[in-house]
């Protein structure tokens, strides 16, 4: 094994990191080979390539590039596992599952709540306030989104979803305001107050859900957030099926993304926001109100994350259930950390996690329900691997989590 690595080294790629990255690519390749359109039917290929990946990983690891090496080892092992699994499934089913364009569309759908959560988190954490309450904010948004839409249905008709999104954002802001008071003024540990809000959100939405819709569930004819049909795009090869017919909230998330980038990195407000998150006392000494900036950021974070929740309930699944977010907010938080608190890398991370959810959703078709249950763990597993592989290196806003003591 090492001989191979050494030979590769001989060609001049001696840098361990290069080898490690090559290993990660090989790991992904091992899996991909077994999928359509190539759909290798023999397990030998993914196993062989996966082993190469692991070898490269071990070699890299031993050269003190531990993170990249570990990543390559993990990628190789996962590549072998999933590659072999894929060759075991029935080929026709696999063709149905791995329709790349459909997977692409599903990826965007699953990534959208994540990106709202992550962008919400970005504002909050860039200002120096940790937000582990994203999960609760999503859930709150999901409930009040559908509640608002149902409530407005009689008088707002098909525009009721607007009321839904609005009430979701409002509810998210209320929740976030509590977090802000607790974190900023009362100087409570931000992780604790965040978790308290998660439980509160879970309890309150569950309570109201049972109280209002407990016997029958949310009605089936909830006015949803409309899809945007772009007719001329729909026939385009590959991209047509992905973006030709996307939910409005998905398009809005792209706008949000670009807007966030400009706001945070190109405006005076953004500069102050980052200053407050990095060194609040320095910001204070030049006359910036640390508390005001933090309140604005935290409350905005609640509104944004809750809009992601509204998408989840009235844009995606069109119903509500107790605790329906299932850790989505935490994956969004992980994506934020994975993306180093920058909008576009964070978006990339949400796409990655969204892809794994899309895969987890479609794979049962190929393997039957029993295995499908196991695949549900995939997004969480991937997040865990990401946390282990990269996040340790990712350094956030220096003052995050520390209450600021005004004199």
């Amino acid at each position, binding site marked *: 094994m090492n001989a191979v690595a050494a030979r590769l080294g001989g060609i001049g790629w001696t840098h361990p990191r290069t080898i490690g990255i090559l290993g990660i690519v090989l790991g992904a390749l091992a899996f991909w080979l077994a999928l359509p359109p190539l759909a290798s039917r023999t397990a030998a290929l993914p196993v062989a390539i996966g082993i190469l990946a692991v070898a490269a990983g071990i070699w890299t690891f031993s050269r003190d590039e531990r993170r990249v090496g570990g990543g390559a080892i993990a990628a190789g092992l996962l590549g072998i596992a999933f590659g072999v699994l894929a060759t075991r499934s029935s080929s026709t089913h696999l063709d149905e599952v791995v329709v790349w364009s459909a997977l692409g569309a599903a990826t965007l759908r699953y990534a959208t709540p994540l990106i709202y959560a992550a962008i919400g988190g970005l504002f909050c954490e860039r200002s120096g306030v940790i937000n582990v309450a994203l999960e609760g904010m999503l859930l709150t948004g999901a409930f009040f989104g559908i509640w608002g839409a149902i409530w407005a249905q009689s008088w707002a008709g098909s525009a009721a979803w607007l009321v839904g999104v609005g009430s979701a954002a409002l509810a998210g802001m209320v929740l976030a305001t509590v977090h802000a008071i607790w974190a900023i003024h009362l100087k409570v540990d931000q992780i604790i107050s965040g978790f308290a809000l998660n439980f509160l959100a879970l309890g309150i939405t569950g309570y109201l859900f049972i109280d209002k819709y407990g016997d029958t569930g949310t009605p089936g004819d909830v006015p949803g957030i409309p899809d945007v049909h772009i007719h001329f795009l729909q026939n385009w090869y590959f991209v047509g099926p992905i973006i030709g017919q996307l939910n409005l909230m998905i398009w809005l998330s792209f706008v949000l993304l670009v807007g966030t980038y400009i706001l945070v990195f190109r405006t005076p407000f953004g500069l102050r926001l980052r200053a407050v998150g*990095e060194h609040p006392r320095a910001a204070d000494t030049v006359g910036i109100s640390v508390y005001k900036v933090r309140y604005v950021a935290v409350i905005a974070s609640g509104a944004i994350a809750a809009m992601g929740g509204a998408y989840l309930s009235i844009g995606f699944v069109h119903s509500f259930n107790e605790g329906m977010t299932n850790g989505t907010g935490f994956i969004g938080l992980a994506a934020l950390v994975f993306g180093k608190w920058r909008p576009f890398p964070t978006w990339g991370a949400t796409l990655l996690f969204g892809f794994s959810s899309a895969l987890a959703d479609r794979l049962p078709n190929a393997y039957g329900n029993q295995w499908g249950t196991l695949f549900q763990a995939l997004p969480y597993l991937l997040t865990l691997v990401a946390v282990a592989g990269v996040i340790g290196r990712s350094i956030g806003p220096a003052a995050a989590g520390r209450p600021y003591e005004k004199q």
Partner: protein
Amino acid sequence: MPEGALLELRGITKRFPGVLANDNVSFELRAGEVHALLGENGAGKSTLMNILYGLYTPDEGEIFLHGRPIDLGSTRAAIEHGIGMVHQHFMLIPVMTVAENIVLATEPRRAGVLMDYDAARRRVRELSERYGLLVDPDARIDRTSVGQQQRVEILKALYRGAEILILDEPTAVLTPQEAKELFEIIRSLTGQGKSIIFISHKLNEVLEVADRVTTLRRGVVVDTIDAEGATEEGLARMMVGREVLLRVDKKPSQPEGALLQVEHLSVVDDRGLEMVRDVSFEVRAGEILGVAGVDANGQSELIDAIAGLRHVSAGRIVVDGRDMTNADAKDTLDAGIGHIPEDRHRRGLVLPFSLTENLALHAYRHAPNSRRGLLNPRVMTARARKLLSEFDVRGGAPATPAFALSGGNQQKVVLAREIDGDPKVLIAAQPTRGLDVGAIEFVHRRLVEQRDAGRAVLLVSLELEEILSLSDRILVIYEGRIVGEFPPSATEEELGLAMTGGRAAA
């Protein structure tokens, strides 16, 4: 010198829980003068200036500008009144550029909402040329030197239109040569009509740069005098309230065999930069070896490597004949290294722990403090009681948490722990940082005692005075290399030159 008060503080009183930081302080600044505020650590200088800068609200007292009372409820108000402050610890955001730091909160805009980075750069360049403060607007703060950071801080104040500039211990982080440059800058600023409050506890600097000197002692103004005609001795007496020994008195050393040998040592820091490069020296029993140098020239990495806290990339460390290269911290401590870390809050103490627990921070794992993994609280407490009285720690019983002690007493606890471990080699990193004169004398005496008891003492300090008065031999470290060895009779200028990389005759 222009007459008439530009700024006046009258009867300022500020209390912190348990401390009267300023007691009825009155202070007057004339236009165009350099007014030094002198006082030892903890005298209340920074507190007074923070009040003037709107960061603290005074409990009593008034502030007058041009004879009119003003209300300084916030830093914004202070800035609007033309007051600027360079803090003792710089208020710069490390991950941002020089220009971003300077314009923060008064940013030039484009199209009403966007940052105008070009304008920001341009204005920084204009200012820096006008005052002769050269900086690169696009450099990230964490990649610039301390001297440059200080210039950025001064520019920050000037950018906001400061007419009155407060410099809080600006020379603490500078070499003697850099300090000289700063004095030039100060003179050119007063030449352009600015008035300056210069805070220091270093007498020679005050005499060199100031027009008048106000001395604070324990929150009370002792006197305001003209710098002309004042002497160091006179100022020292005002500052401390008694005669002070400017030199530690000690017998000449009688060094014996080497207890610590460092051979061709190289160490990299967390970012992968080589901070210690091919360093060799030895410390013998019965001597104090001083290592002088400007902050961040590899001292911390050197100490950490010797103490087993950082991986050594090349070279050898030998403690009393045993090779301890890359041993872990526990084994290194057990091999006879005692370590007074440079930051007692961050590294020296577990602040919420009781003094008993802090004093047992190394010894807890050895009998009789513990046996087979079970602690013996009674033994630990008895030991703590003994050490607290031996080292004259005031204000704490064995069960008192460490955060309840004053800085000097906290340092005594660290000292007690390290000395009680009976080390062969004692590393003292900035052992007197932030202490008052009484505590400094105590620490110095103890270090000399350890030397006389036949231990090898490695003293690393940024204070040249401390190095010169305690060391038997002096090494100068610059950019990770030892650039010279000096006898204790060397002058500050000689050392200062070597500290900035200028070759000196060794």
